[in-house]
């Protein structure tokens, strides 16, 4: 089982348990766990609605592809620890990470 700690858009922190699933990503999993998740583009790394800051475990994640980096560029509030949840596959590499969801508006 993979454990991910999430700070939601209202600043509440909770640790969720997820299963390694092919064809699923952290954005979809957060949606399934009833986190507020608009995901305008549906998971194509194009809208940045699922932007999150990886407060712990950033370096253990798979490196971002160009499209994700391009889209992160459009977030004025992006930081060096920014990722798009839709690009993080539901794999063991997520175990132990702590993320913070950010507002859509930025």
């Amino acid at each position: 089982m993979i454990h991910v700690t999430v700070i939601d858009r209202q600043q509440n922190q909770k640790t969720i348990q997820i299963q390694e699933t092919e064809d699923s990503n952290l954005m979809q999993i957060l949606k399934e766990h009833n986190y507020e998740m608009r995901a305008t583009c549906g998971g194509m790394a194009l809208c940045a609605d699922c932007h999150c800051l990886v407060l712990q475990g950033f370096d253990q994640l798979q490196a971002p592809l160009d499209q994700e980096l391009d889209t992160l560029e459009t977030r004025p509030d992006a930081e060096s620890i920014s990722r798009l949840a839709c690009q993080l596959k539901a794999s063991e590499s997520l175990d132990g990470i702590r993320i913070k969801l950010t507002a859509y508006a930025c």
Partner: protein
Amino acid sequence: MIDTDICIIGAGPVGLFAVFEAGLLKMRCHLVDALPQVGGQLSEIYPQKPIYDIPGYPSILAQELIENLMEQISPFRPGFTLAERVDSIEKDQAGKFTVLTSEKTLITAKVIVIAGGLGCFEPRKPAISGLEDFEGRGISYFIKDPELFRNKKIVLSGGGDSALDWTIFLAEVASELTLVHRGESFRGAPDSAEKVGQLASEGKIRLLLESQITSVSGNGHLQSVTVAGKTRQDFAFEADHLIPLFGLTPKLGPIASWGLALDKSAIEVRLSDYSTSVEGIYAIGDINTYPGKLKLILSGFHEAALMAQSAFKYVYPQQKLSFKYTTVNGINAF
């Protein structure tokens, strides 16, 4: 003043197809969209992405679908008001609606159809203290007329293609141009990034990398911006205009204040015809919600068809509506 049968708010795929369904019933439509082009998020966010669940098309590019829809509705000659956001909807005692846009365009209609998707696309705004105080007074998010910037001190912020392209263009127009970018390099088109680097090394622009604007100030109009850099102290410099360029993101916007029953950010509708809590106003596509709602383009097309039948009965309660197939009757253009 524009007068029409149905005013459709949102020119995405569902709003466009609503023109077709209304047209079959001889109702004229006028579309309004906050974006400067039709197509909604298909054109704005993923024009070159293939869509696989449009019936009859094993695969179609998002932009191609929009072009096809424009061709399909052209016999019904819809009107368009683009790059204007609908700010208010008023209903008079006779039941006629008046729509007012951000640019003060007035549209009167018998029926309103909200096909607004996720809301209006609005510019992403950086968190800069005092930013909103100078919007329209030195701070803007779009460049409509570059001549407004001639011989002015301009600051652009951002690192994408738009920031690079405008830097190259405005370098010739502005008296002084500064590009502020948080990254140490650009992810935009390599050619453009190279050109910007060249302009900076020739002294034609000031390029501030690994930097962010932290505050703006002025006296009624923008006069200066303060920039914080990774490797140097904060400093302020004179600026007549600041243009943050970080793309667009949808916001529900004024729709929330139109007196419609909402569930979170979606408009509640009746399942039978997608009418809202206000008689004469319908909501179709991603903007609505009902039990079993699926946010799919094909669901929106179905909603458009049922909406048009209901809207006809609402506008012409005395007329008999006989259902006709296009295969039998063809398209009777007007």
